[in-house]
């Protein structure tokens, strides 16, 4: 598709460049050459599925850090980091009342980098809640929810709820006193709803109190259902940011 812009003089550097970026294999993976010319820089963004979340050019004011403080991006970064560390944790963790606590203990003591992975997962989860709240505040105070971005704000509110639920369902998994009682307090609040309170609590716990059924439900929600939903809504969110004409700016 794209042809490389080959430098006219072929000194040593150019030959090296060709060797790395103009060979058959590189070109089969990345359609463009190395992004060192405006043309290739645009092509690399447009043809790479990950970079393609971005437009190829954006308004000058939006690359200023003080416009977004990278907060939406950081929230997404936390989500990705949580996915990676979460997958690693899943190798060692079995969501049964008999094993859960011992598995976490083993992770902390017997598994190489186990406690690092667990700590990272925990702190990133906290960080994500903080960044999502700050992101919401930055969107609010820059008036970026105004037309035509009304719906993306609503998608954002859904993402905020999903973030809280992801964190809440993960909280039970270590099956220690902190986890058990926090979820007991939390689900008791759900149970106090005037309509369908007891029913929703039962649905969430798979019983009347926190036990083996609750553990497996929270686990399933935490590792598959909610991340999937969050990923879907994030896809919509990012798509809409682009469809609504990039980030908001004065008319």
């Amino acid at each position, binding site marked *: 598709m794209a042809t490389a812009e080959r430098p006219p003089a072929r000194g040593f550097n150019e030959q090296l460049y060709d060797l790395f970026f103009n060979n058959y294999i590189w070109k089969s993976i990345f359609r463009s050459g190395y992004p060192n010319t405006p043309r290739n820089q645009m092509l690399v963004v447009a043809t790479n599925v990950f970079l393609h979340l971005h437009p190829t*050019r954006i308004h000058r004011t939006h690359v200023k850090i003080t416009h977004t403080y990278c907060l939406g991006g950081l929230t997404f970064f936390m989500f990705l980091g949580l996915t990676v560390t979460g997958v690693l944790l899943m190798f060692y963790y079995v969501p049964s009342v008999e094993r859960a606590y011992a598995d976490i203990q083993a992770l902390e003591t017997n598994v190489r980098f186990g406690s690092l992975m667990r700590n990272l997962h925990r702190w990133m989860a906290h960080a994500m809640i903080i960044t999502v709240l700050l992101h919401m505040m930055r969107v609010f*105070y820059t008036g970026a929810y105004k037309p035509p971005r009304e719906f993306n704000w609503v998608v954002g509110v859904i993402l905020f709820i999903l973030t809280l639920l992801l964190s809440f369902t993960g909280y039970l998994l270590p099956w220690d006193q902190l986890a058990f009682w926090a979820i007991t307090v939390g689900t008791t609040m759900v149970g106090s709803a005037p309509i369908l309170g007891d029913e929703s609590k039962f649905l969430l716990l798979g019983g009347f109190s926190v036990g083996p059924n609750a553990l497996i439900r929270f686990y399933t929600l935490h590792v598959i259902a909610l991340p999937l939903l969050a990923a879907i809504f994030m896809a919509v969110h990012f798509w809409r940011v682009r469809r609504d004409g990039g980030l*908001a700016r004065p008319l």
Partner: protein
Amino acid sequence: MAERVVAALQRRPRREREEEVLVWPDLVFVEFISAVLFTVSLVVLSVFINAPLLNRADPDTTPNPSKAPWYFLNLQELLLHMEPAWAGVIVPTILLIVLAAVPYWDRSNEQQGVWFGTANSVRLTIWGMGVGLFGTIWLIIYDGQKHVEWTENIIRGLGLNRDFTWPGGLDWARDLRSLDTRINWDDLSFTIGDFKMFQDWRAIPLGIPGTTEDPWLLNLNFPSFLSQQLIPVATMIGLPVLLYLFTRHKLGWIYSRRDTAILIFSGFIATYIVLTAVGQFFRGEAQELRAPWDIVVVEE
């Protein structure tokens, strides 16, 4: 599709084009640097600070205080001041709906995409946050009977009256629940004709006085309804409304819906933070107000 995109790009005014920069390198660079920075600092944090792991879960030993995860402590804090259904479910549901509805209410598309777009937005933010901050703290102090304790200590401490105690006549003003528990509601009963009104405030008779012998009873405990539902809900709606009216008519800072939104959102954010922080740092055994260093968790 592609043609349309290209056509749209070409239609864009030339000036605008010049205001644009390439995503690679300008944006990708910033993203890369912040990803590296955050990866490094999170790894360092995780090397030095371990995630908590207490004893294995034991349904028979309840830690006191038992707390929800920190991001739900705002709701758990509300729970101490009102009926659980309001605090745990109705209030958060309504808040999320209102939050999602903001753009459908504040529809003008002026002042978008710049920080603090309207003329008064900075002062509205500071003012809204200030009122939310101190207002919420004050309400929590009131409902924690701290004003009683402090008044007693100050009057005793100044030597005005060494045995001073909170006056019995003001018992109802100790905290919200005192309205229910410290007033003898039966004394407030009265009769209209031969119809005995409110002899028992725990069930409100409905029906026109004098028309029926045996009125239908509304099974509503009025004193508790007053202190746990009516007043808390009226406060949550009333105070923001008062704040709005005062800011609009007395201060004259509000010119648009955007201004109102900024004021109320700022107040909400401050309240949210105060409730979370109080729940996290200032609630000890039996959810009593405590200084952070006095909080111990006992298992019972």
